């Protein structure tokens, strides 16, 4: 028996329960020598796992540890991949969406050079009218012309299998392979699958072809040149040389699939058919939607319908003959489903390919069809829109019609051009022997993690199959997670959310008032509720609708006070293991004792690395669960008067009520196309209508202790605590509990002062209480702000907040804006964002809007800040009472500096044009004093800007009645005569890495733009990947072994220009310096950059006390504070002013308060010690260097005399 045959015979596959990203990483890491990566959702995880594997020392099938290297962008990653391939290494990368678009230039090159390579892509929407992180095929379809083979997976098993087939086929064919699967639905869905072993992989890969790949490499030992430039005489001929490879490719892929089938028993074809052998109506599609369609077709065939499905596996090169041959000869009508949109095209791409294949071969007589089938096309599932069996049925039903609708959409209501197919959502293919559970939890309560463990337990410990899919929130604080779990006796193809649950778990009582979760329950289902109320009183505490659903559907109802159990067992707010135990106990999927034993094993696996104490308390919580779990005897009637409150207030504007509010209620899927703006433009000030009420406790203000410092408002990430000064006569009928006091200020003597907490918008992060310096003299443990229960003051504080907002805002020019106290009297034009509780970035963002928001244009790089600012449903940016506010946009991740620079160019051009017109338009020049004042205004500081605004208003009045063209033109430009403030905001991933080239150019260009870098020292939004800002020794994703090199010094780089204003700030170390830096940066008539140290959840700190972490970062010398103002150099002074003192605490005292550093001491202690030593020395050296710079004389030496 040959070794190859024995590989097949002796095969003992392992079953694993994993998601698609993990499946890819398993194969890709094992089959590659070099992996170049860059984070992008939802692909990042593939890179993270690869990096972790290499950091752990895991070898590939060739017995060596692959190099995993993060680049500065996807463009950089593809360049590195290209280079590594050319140098002969087996190389891969992972990406999607905008990242894939950045790889396109290299993809053309790699394919043009017939280079074996694999890119794994979790296909995701491309940003157009809006960004979407979710799945569709618009990214991969944009690469159709690159010459890459496209191999598509639809299920998690297929993801692993096709990964292997791609790595094999690329060597067989010499074509590079793009292997893709649907973002989130496949990248994040967890399924029980068969894992390929290293022996399997060795069996598949042909060593001779690997050697051939290497032999083609660039090497000085057998030198060649590639990448020539060619002239019209030969370029084209050269381009056609690849044709035989493309012609041969499909057959070679099929052979690879056949070889794979011999190994595993799983037979794939270039196009796979399922359904009736004599089907007349067939749908053709690819990706995860095909799994759902498979399920629908099987159900319809079982009912006698002559329908079928063709799944596309190899989309490029598109084998027209294999495509046509896949259809039964009986087919009369075909529906082609695309998950992408090509506006302006004849049709979407797969439709065009299928139509071409059938028409071409039918004309040649090479199809089995008696008559030319009718082919129609439609779109589905864009941006991860749900795709259900009911939609598949509608698509197939459409084919029954004599004139089926063509170019349709299915899954939304398209009521503008009326292209949507209607479907009956009550039609279901779910089977009774499948357990279908939906679990509603908080991100912080561990529900998702526990559910993942449940899937693993059932998947790996029983013969059953398991599937898990998790839906997350658009907010980062107080966010809800919904877990969809299926357990059944057969492989599960249901690639859609559960809408018919036989188990519903509600892990937070307050969700009952927010979501009609029992709508998804089937009759007789089980409902498990985490309730602070016992089994005898819970019924009366629930909303009426919940009672109604329970009665109507005859639900079995259980409750547990999980928080009581968690508290008793030291688990705090973590109820995951408790609720998991309840699920197993009630559902009976496993015998109770067995389930508990397995839960405990899972706990040990999950928490073992955090020490025995953590494991033991989790175990304890499991042990105490069942005695606290109660079945509720459901009364026969509705007793509750509690109604579900509307998602937004009736007072909200029309758009908010009709569109935003529907999204807030979780019903956005029901909104028709006609409700949406055509160009992605949305109104400001909508976050204030979404009263989330997520804080259990909020700050209570004790005015008798308050010293009116304003620090609480300054640090609040959500503008949920504000200060205001107002005249006493403005106080008309204040609510009884509204608090105010005399304002302690000489210049505004006699005014009143108030601090108001927006109870319904507060996240309860406690940052304000932590920073509050005012202590009760008799009991210093009590401050002016102390946390207290939210619910008991919710209504009164709602009334107080409304009253507070109605009180007049102080005149901006009457407060000292360059102080903490003064700046916090300015209205924040950034409120109630979706940022994390305790976010370290948003206080800076808020300050920006307080100081300059009424005249700011903001360009925002993709990342955390663009998400908490721009992610629907609501918008935190808002307007002041005059209707002015920041105008904001996000272009891309990589071009933010250039995008904002473009704002400046336009604004400057308009300013210049307006000035030219003011000086020559007769209607204006007839008011010479006004014109002179307008043109002469320097607009330095708030009063001067106010004065200019008044002048411009006067000018506009004058122009209003003018009829000449130039006057009319001036009227459209007049507002630009008032100084605009251009801000370019983003994180360190943008500034230090992907956007650095543009950032550098924009700084160098010298125009008046202000860059604010919210520096969290990692890619926060995508989950904490290393950037060049990440400090030495910090553990980050993509730096699992600790970052081995020091942080890039952006400040020094910017200073080297000499004409760039540079400041480093850390609000927690020196809030006054922060305010001053913002004001100076904006006032400086040239480029400015503020590097703002921003604490982040990815640092592994208690976000409540993040300001203390900032302080320590400064005190140890990691983040020295300074301002470099070129305006001082012009006066012969040293432009650099150090605003912090020499390091006074050890680097360790800073770093080891943060998990990102500390965890390396638990993983690689000796390495950690070395990094700590180096980092400490670096900090001291940096301080010394800055000190010397700040001490330099700026007096110029005498110029040499001219000879």
């Amino acid at each position: 028996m040959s070794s190859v045959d024995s590989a097949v015979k002796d095969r003992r596959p392992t079953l694993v329960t994993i998601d698609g990203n993990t499946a890819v990483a398993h194969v890709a890491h094992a089959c590659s020598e070099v992996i170049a990566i860059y984070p992008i959702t939802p692909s990042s995880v593939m890179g993270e796992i690869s990096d972790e594997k290499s950091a752990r020392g895991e070898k590939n099938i060739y017995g060596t540890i692959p190099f995993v290297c993060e680049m500065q962008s996807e463009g950089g990653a593809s360049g590195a991949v290209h280079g590594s391939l050319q140098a002969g290494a087996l190389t891969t990368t992972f990406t999607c969406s905008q990242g894939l678009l950045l790889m396109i230039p290299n993809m053309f090159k790699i394919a043009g050079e017939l280079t074996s390579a694999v890119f794994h892509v979790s296909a995701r929407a491309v940003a157009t009218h809006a960004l979407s992180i979710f799945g569709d095929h618009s990214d991969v379809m944009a690469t159709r012309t690159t010459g890459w083979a496209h191999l598509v997976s639809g299920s998690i098993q297929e993801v692993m299998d096709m990964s292997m087939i791609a790595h094999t086929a690329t060597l067989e064919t010499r074509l590079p392979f793009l292997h893709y699967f649907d973002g989130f639905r496949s990248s994040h869905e967890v399924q029980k699958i068969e894992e390929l072993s290293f022996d399997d992989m060795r069996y598949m890969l042909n060593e001779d072809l690997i050697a051939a790949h290497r032999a083609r490499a660039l090497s000085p030992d057998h030198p060649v040149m590639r990448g020539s430039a060619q002239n019209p005489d030969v370029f084209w001929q050269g381009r056609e040389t690849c044709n035989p490879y493309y012609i041969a490719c499909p057959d070679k892929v099929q052979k690879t699939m056949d070889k794979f089938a011999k190994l595993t028993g799983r037979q794939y074809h270039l196009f796979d058919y399922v359904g009736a052998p004599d089907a007349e109506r067939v749908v053709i599609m690819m990706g995860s939607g095909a799994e759902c369609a498979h399920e629908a077709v099987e159900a319809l065939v079982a009912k006698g319908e002559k329908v079928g499905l063709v799944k596309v596996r190899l989309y490029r090169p598109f084998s027209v003959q294999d495509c046509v041959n896949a259809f039964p000869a009986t087919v009369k009508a075909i529906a082609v489903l695309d998950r992408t949109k090509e506006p302006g095209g004849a049709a979407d791409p797969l439709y065009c390919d299928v139509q071409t294949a059938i028409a071409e071969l039918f004309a040649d007589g090479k199809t089995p069809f008696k008559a030319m089938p009718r082919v129609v096309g439609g779109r589905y599932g864009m941006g991860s829109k749900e795709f259900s069996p009911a939609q598949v049925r509608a698509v197939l039903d459409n084919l029954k019609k004599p004139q089926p609708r063509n170019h349709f959409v299915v899954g939304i209501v398209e009521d503008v051009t009326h292209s949507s197919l209607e479907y009956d959502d009550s039609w279901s293919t779910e089977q009774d022997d499948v357990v279908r559970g939906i679990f509603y939890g908080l991100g912080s309560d561990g529900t998702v993690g526990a559910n993942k463990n449940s899937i693993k337990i059932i998947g790996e410990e029983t013969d059953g199959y398991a599937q898990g899919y998790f839906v997350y929130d658009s907010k980062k604080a107080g966010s809800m997670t919904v877990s969809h779990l299926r357990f059944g006796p057969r492989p599960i193809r249901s690639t859609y959310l559960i809408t018919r649950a036989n188990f519903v778990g509600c892990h937070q009582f307050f969700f009952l008032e927010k979501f009609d979760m029992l709508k998804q329950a089937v009759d007789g289902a089980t409902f498990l509720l985490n309730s602070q109320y016992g089994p005898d009183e819970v019924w009366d505490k629930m909303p009426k609708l919940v009672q109604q659903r329970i009665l109507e559907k005859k639900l079995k109802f259980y409750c547990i006070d999980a928080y009581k159990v968690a508290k008793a067992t030291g688990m705090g707010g973590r109820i995951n293991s408790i609720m998991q135990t309840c699920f197993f106990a009630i559902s009976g999927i496993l015998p109770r004792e067995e389930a508990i034993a397995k839960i405990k094993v899972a706990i040990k696996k999950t928490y073992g690395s955090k020490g025995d104490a953590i494991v033991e308390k989790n175990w304890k919580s499991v042990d105490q669960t069942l005695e606290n779990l109660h079945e509720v005897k459901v009364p026969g009637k509705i007793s509750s008067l509690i109604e579900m409150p509307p998602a937004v207030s009736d007072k909200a504007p029309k758009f908010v009520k009709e569109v935003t509010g529907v999204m807030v209620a979780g019903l956005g899927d029901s909104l028709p196309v006609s409700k949406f703006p055509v160009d992605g433009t949305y109104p400001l000030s909508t976050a204030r209508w979404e009263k989330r009420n997520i804080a259990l406790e909020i700050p209570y203000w004790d005015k008798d202790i308050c010293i009116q410092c304003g620090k609480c408002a300054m640090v609040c990430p959500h503008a949920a605590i504000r200060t205001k000064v107002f005249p006493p006569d403005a106080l008309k009928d204040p609510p009884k509990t509204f608090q105010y006091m005399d304002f302690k200020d000489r210049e505004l003597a006699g005014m009143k002062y108030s601090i108001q907490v927006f109870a319904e918008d507060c996240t309860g992060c406690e940052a304000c209480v932590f920073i509050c310096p005012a202590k009760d003299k008799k009991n210093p443990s009590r401050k002016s702000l102390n946390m207290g229960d939210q619910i008991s003051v919710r209504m009164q504080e709602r009334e107080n907040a409304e009253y507070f907002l109605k009180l007049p805002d102080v005149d901006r020019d009457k407060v000292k804006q360059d102080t903490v106290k003064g700046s916090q009297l300015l209205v924040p034009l950034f409120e109630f964002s979706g940022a994390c509780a305790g976010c370290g970035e948003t206080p800076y963002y808020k300050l920006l809007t307080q100081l300059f928001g009424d005249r700011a244009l903001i360009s925002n790089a993709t990342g955390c800040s663009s998400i908490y600012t721009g992610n629907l449903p609501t918008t935190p940016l808002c307007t002041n009472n005059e209707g002015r506010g920041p105008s904001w946009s996000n272009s891309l991740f990589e071009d933010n500096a250039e995008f904002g620079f473009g704002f400046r160019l336009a604004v400057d051009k308009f300013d210049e044009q307006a000035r030219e017109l003011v000086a020559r338009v007769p209607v204006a020049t007839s008011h010479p004093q006004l014109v002179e004042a307008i043109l002469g205004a320097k607009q330095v500081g708030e009063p001067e800007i106010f004065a200019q605004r008044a002048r411009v208003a006067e000018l506009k009045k004058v122009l209003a009645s003018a009829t000449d063209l130039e006057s009319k033109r001036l009227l459209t430009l007049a507002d630009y005569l008032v100084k605009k403030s251009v801000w370019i905001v983003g994180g360190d991933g943008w500034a230090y890495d992907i956007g650095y080239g543009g950032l550098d150019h924009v700084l160098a260009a010298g125009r008046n733009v202000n860059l604010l870098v919210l520096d969290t020292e990692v890619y926060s939004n995508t989950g904490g990947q290393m950037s060049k800002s990440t400090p030495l020794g910090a553990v980050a994703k993509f730096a699992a072994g600790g970052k081995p090199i020091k942080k890039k010094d952006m400040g020094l780089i910017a200073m080297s220009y000499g004409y760039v204003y540079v400041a480093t700030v850390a609000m927690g170390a020196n809030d006054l310096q922060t305010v001053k830096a913002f004001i100076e940066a904006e006032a400086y008539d040239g480029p400015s950059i503020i590097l703002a140290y921003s604490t982040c959840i990815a640092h592994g700190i208690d976000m409540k006390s993040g300001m203390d972490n900032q302080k320590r970062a400064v005190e140890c010398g990691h983040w020295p504070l300074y301002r470099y103002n070129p305006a001082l150099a012009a006066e012969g002074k040293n432009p650099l002013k150090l605003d912090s003192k020499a390091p006074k605490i050890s680097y360790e005292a800073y770093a080891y308060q943060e998990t990102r550093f500390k965890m390396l001491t638990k993983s690689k202690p000796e390495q950690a010690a070395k990094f700590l030593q180096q980092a400490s020395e670096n900090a001291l050296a940096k301080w010394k260097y800055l000190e010397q710079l700040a001490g330099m004389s700026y007096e110029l030496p005498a110029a040499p005399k001219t000879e």
Partner: protein
Amino acid sequence: MDLSTTYLGLKLRNPLVVSSSSLCDSVDKLKALEEAGAGAVVLKSLFEEQIILEGEQMDATTSTAESFPEATSYFADIPMEIGPQQYVALVSKAKKALGIPVIASLNCVTAKNWAKYARQIESAGADALELNVYFLPTDPSRTSAQIEGTYLQIVEQVRKTVDIPVAVKLSPFFTAIPHMVSEISKRGVNGVVLFNRFYQPNLDLEEMKASSQLHLSRPEDCLLPMRWIALMYGRVKIDFAATTGIHDGKSALKVLMAGANVAQVCSVLFKHKAQHLSVMLRDMEAWLKEKEYASLSDIRGVLSQKTCPDPEAFERAQYIKIIVGHD
């Protein structure tokens, strides 16, 4: 000059033992101490409470994700060891790297882990184990007898668990120190270390809060252990290690002459680095030569209360004399 001594049954080349502290938390540092002349080293304590807190911190800061689709976690999934593993590895590495005795130090808060961790430390090759037992008696309802009972239970438990020599480091805050030491001795413990230094919290009048700060010992601090060792030497059958305030060769000689087997040094090494050990040894040798002692063993206990020409000096009467004298 023969400076060797015996402590906990271990033969030491000299009586200078480096106390349990961050001076002894890595093999590199330990080797430097050995090269500078240390007779033995006591490793930095394994604090169970710290392990628990680190676990809690890791858990609290790394388990808050799973809420946002772009970031279902914020930390790389790397293998970590939060537990005694690293400490046990340090013991093992130190044993391989050093020729002098390596004494481990243990401080636990849960009953079961005293024995569990002690066993692991013994398996790693430690020559002896110093129990750093400390409970702050904050509960007014607990009597001194109850607290002493807790100490003795731990001592008994560990003594039954391991075969290596065991010492107990005590605080000076016992009503009846000789009785306590005697009870410890009865349970088979080989030595006591007198006394543990505790960080005392301070008050920050600006911030209106308590603050903590590391204060190194002062030379006069050695008088306290010296007194109690002098009182107990020859009366309680147990080895004595003096610690706190031993900054130079002469203070080391004093505690040895009071009856200590060894002198533990720490603060002075923070100030003057490891090399100071050789200075102390040189001074001790010089004094012994000058006073014509043949070896260090000749001076042990000669100025204890038993043989001191002025035994009452160690008792209360001496205190009265000073007060009277100052009048």
